[in-house]
């Protein structure tokens, strides 16, 4: 029982960090209608820049900011490849992804960088956090509820909830501004927004920049929470992002932008939970993670359609039955 609590806790914790990456994927994939595979590379770029900066003595907050800038630049380059180089969106992303693999190795100078005994955003706040006494308060509630083991610290979870929500609200606001509206229209009807004097090339470039900045930010936080960056930690990241977006949209709805961004964050957490529980199945181990991810995405894509078809068939059956019984009487 306690094992489940702890692993759910860490699933939610990493889910909320990956939610930033999912928001980035939502911006490119849904808002710009641009399947951007840069994500696999820019996620690591974020982690690499943050880790190497911290190791070299840069304060963690500044190091995280550098990571965001690096991710933004990666997205901008993908955007330029697509709009100015006229390379198809999928291929632009793939090219950038593969280029970033080498660039990330260059940034780190080796395949992985450890952050053992280095300051991070989280451990810098731990002392202040402990003085607040929130950990013992929350844990005492858990113990009262019958848990026999409790999470070590809540600092990562709480900080990430705050940061992710702030970024969610900024994103919601941005997508309602004049520039944001034009950005959304670029993905929705490019021909139309061009006829209303919007430079769709620049909008695509900026949109991909922001998207990958969020992805890199997520990478930087994952590196600091996990204590290391590995050059291969971005493999399949785009699929995880898509999984979060699709699961979130299916479970929590897409009524408006604010609802959808919240759904995407929820989707990222649900994905981590599902993955954690799937790995608890006896014959599955961590090397099956990617396979499980693929299955989750497939289910998330197929199930809503099946349910809708079933509902429609049921509605028609009921209507026919009603008509038939009406005729008999």
């Amino acid at each position, binding site marked *: 029982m306690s094992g489940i609590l702890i692993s759910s806790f860490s699933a939610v914790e990493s889910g909320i960090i990956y939610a930033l990456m999912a928001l980035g994927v939502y911006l490119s994939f849904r808002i710009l209608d641009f399947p951007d595979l840069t994500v696999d590379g820019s996620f690591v770029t974020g982690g690499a820049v943050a880790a190497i900066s911290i190791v070299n003595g840069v304060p963690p907050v500044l190091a995280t900011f550098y990571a965001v800038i690096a991710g933004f630049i990666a997205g901008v380059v993908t955007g330029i490849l697509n709009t100015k180089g006229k390379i198809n969106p999928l291929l632009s992303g793939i090219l950038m992804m593969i280029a970033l693999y080498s660039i990330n190795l260059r940034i780190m100078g080796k395949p992985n960088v450890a952050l053992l005994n280095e300051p991070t955003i989280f451990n810098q706040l731990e002392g202040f956090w402990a003085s607040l006494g929130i950990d013992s308060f929350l844990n005492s509630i858990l113990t009262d509820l019958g848990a026999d083991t409790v999470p070590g610290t809540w600092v990562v979870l709480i900080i990430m909830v705050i940061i992710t929500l702030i970024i969610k609200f900024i994103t919601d606001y941005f997508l309602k501004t004049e520039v944001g509206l034009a950005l959304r229209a670029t993905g929705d009807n490019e021909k139309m927004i061009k006829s209303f*004097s919007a430079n*769709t090339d620049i909008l695509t470039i900026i949109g991909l920049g922001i998207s990958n900045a969020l992805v890199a930010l997520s990478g930087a936080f994952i590196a600091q929470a996990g204590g290391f960056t590995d050059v291969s930690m971005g493999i399949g990241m785009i699929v995880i992002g898509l999984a979060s977006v699709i699961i979130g949209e299916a479970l929590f709805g897409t009524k408006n932008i604010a609802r959808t961004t919240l759904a995407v964050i929820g989707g990222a957490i649900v994905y981590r939970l599902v993955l954690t529980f799937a790995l608890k199945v006896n014959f599955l181990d961590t090397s099956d993670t990617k396979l499980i991810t693929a299955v989750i995405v497939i289910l998330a894509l197929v199930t809503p359609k099946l349910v809708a078809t079933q509902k429609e068939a049921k509605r028609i059956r009921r209507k026919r039955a009603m008509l038939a019984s009406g005729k008999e009487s």
Partner: protein
Amino acid sequence: MLSMKDIEITFNEGTLDEKKALQGINLDMEKGDFVTVIGSNGAGKSTLMNMVSGSLKPDIGTVKINDKNVTMLPEYKRSQFIGRVFQDPMAGTAPTMTIEENLAMAYARNKKRTLKVGVSKKRKALFKEHLETLHLGLENRLNAKVGLLSGGERQALSLLMATFTEPNILLLDEHTAALDPSRAELITNLTGEVVEQFDLTTVMVTHNMQQALDLGNRLIMMDKGQIILEVSGQEKQQLTIEKLLHEFQRIRGKQMENDRAILG
């Protein structure tokens, strides 16, 4: 207001598929002029529209709007001066966005886009006011996604979006062709009203001869990339479909004789 001088465009030059899409086009429009353009398929009407809008650049010649040379100005910059309604009712609006958001994007056409909220309270009132002129009840559906509207409603909204910021030039590209007759009539009437209201300089391409006669103060007929007939003012008012067809055959016939003479 809009002037085209010695315009020439050739597609696939130097190949077997070479096509002179526009040749020797000269057209001068005063403020408030409403030109209807007719002609058979491939006559160059759409090329003319795309050339004015900036999505095509002429090989030779100049385009001026308000005495400003815009020949080489890219489409997105030129659209500050130009409102456009397309043939496809789906083309002029963003389907996943709401009516008010679409109007906000249109409102920003001749302004710099900023990081201020696109749909402010003040603008909402303005949008409502404009939507009321369509008499479609859209003013009560500001938050409806445009993809849920019918083709006629979408085209009426497109027309409003293209015109309510009073562009220097209005381009209508067979904008009633994809609608059923009653909706087409509605849009035709709205077009007449809105052009008069804002005194817009308008170019309208149409396949509907009656529409070309009913709307506008000038009419041009195109064939094989050239303007073969120009009628305006009093003369246009007295024009009928029969006269137009007769005129078309007279000019085309003469040309065919010329061709025969050359070939013979």
